[in-house]
């Protein structure tokens, strides 16, 4: 994957790449710290159809959604041989009782039999997180377990 980085003197920096479908997609990072998601129009890759300002939290959440999807797909692929095992993603909202708490406090594996195999955070993967990893709002938990176990885990993360 080849990401182009271009300086925008006086404004910041643009990072983008060409998608297989012929559209340019990327972000503009301003000197003041804001981030903008840019998508080119379909007929002229030089121009932008949309530039969407994102807060740091929104950018991290979007990065997790895109990255997490891929991770979850890989995991499902690997677990296809084992019937009854499903991969699911949980996002930690600001209203979750476990935000800013170590993950071990939720006792997910003990209570539901579900394993948290990775956390997507700000576009990066925390693999095999231990019980003392602190959960932040916007984190995306990649969980593996049975259908029923995952429902229980979702309930635990939402309601404690």
């Amino acid at each position, binding site marked *: 994957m080849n990401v182009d980085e271009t*300086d925008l003197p006086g*404004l910041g920096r643009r990072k983008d790449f060409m998608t297989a479908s012929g559209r340019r997609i990327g972000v503009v990072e301003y000197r003041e710290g804001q981030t903008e998601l*840019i998508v080119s129009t*379909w*007929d002229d890759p*030089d*121009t932008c159809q*949309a530039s969407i300002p994102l807060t740091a939290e929104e950018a991290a959440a979007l990065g997790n959604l895109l990255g997490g999807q891929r991770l979850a797909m890989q995991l499902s692929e690997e677990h296809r041989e084992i019937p009854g095992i499903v991969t699911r993603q949980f996002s930690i909202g600001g209203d979750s009782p476990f935000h800013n708490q170590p993950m071990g406090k939720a006792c997910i594996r003990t209570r539901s039999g579900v394993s948290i195999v990775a956390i997507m955070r700000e576009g990066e993967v925390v693999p095999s997180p231990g019980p003392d990893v602190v959960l932040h709002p916007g984190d995306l938990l990649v969980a593996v377990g049975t259908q029923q176990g995952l429902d229980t885990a979702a309930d635990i993360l939402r309601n404690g």
Partner: protein
Amino acid sequence: MDPLALTLIELGAVVFCLGLLARLAGRIGMSPIPLYLVGGLFFGAGGLVKLEGMHEFAHLSSEIGVILLLLMLGLEYTAAELVTGLRRSWKAGVLDLVLNFIPGAGLAVLLGWGLVGAMVMGGVTYISSSGIAAKVITDLGRIGNRETPVVLSILVFEDLAMAVYLPILTATLAGVSFLVGLQTVGISLAVVTVVLVVALRHGHHVSKAVHSENSEVFLLNLLGAALLVAGLAAAMQVSAAVGAFMLGIAISGATAHSATRILEPLRDLFAAIFFVVFGLNTDPSSIPPVLGWALMLAVLTAATKMITGIWAAKRAGIALPGRFRAGAALIARGEFSIVIAGLAVASGVVPHDLAALATAYVLIMAIMGPLAARYVEPAVKMLRRRPAKPRPAARPI
């Protein structure tokens, strides 16, 4: 009436009117600069109302306005951006300089304003308004566009060119002998280089000297330093504006960003007064005789900026619509053209018609620039669509 009361009333009325004009400009989505100029023409010399009481304050304020405009121009780009910009886009920058300096200088010679007039008018037609260009690019959502770095790097080059041009201009205006002039220019070039090197290597020291977490302390430090440096530069026969500009370049990094934020309201106020004062000192009746020339110059220099942008964007591998967008974004002239004309008028060695021509020219360009930038794209699309068959509707999404 008590002179103080008169001054306050006049000043209050003028600033209030400027507020109304700025609001009107915002409503119709144009730069307030041409409206400020028209406001200035309306009052003052040859205008409807003569303002005598605020003369002294307005004069000093407009000087501060110029200093703040150039300080902010220096703050806009970091030394590193200036150096990489120079390295990467000097070809486009030189083309820009040649194509856009010659029309102004040529007309000045044609009108018999001599070498000094040519020097001034060349600068007026050369320098794009980075303020208007940046606003247009932001307003039209073109920051993520591919041609935008091309436009910005041309503006960066112009920024650097100003650092060399302004000392030459001041030396020419002062009417010094060739040798003394050469010496002044040599000193300024050396100062520019030293400031760039210092800003690159030790920029954080300069920044640290003025920076403060307390915004009040920071503002006073900045303004004090700017006026001090400007005053010292003026005392050394280098223009005060150049001194402020150099200080702006030397301040870098996070300090520069917060300095920009903190100085913006002050700059807006004093620059507005500067534009009004420039308009005040221009007799409106001197404009109609030069209007034809101004229009001709406007059309010509709009075309030359267009060519500059198209050429530079083509070199960067940008498709046809993007090339035209790049050219159109550069058309607007504004604050710095007036700064150059203002320096010339203040020196008193240029004919009065020059102020009138510069005013008329900037009025046209500051209005035409944003309009051209907005409508160039639909225009190009319409022209292209007519001969070609409509595209197959293979539109994803």
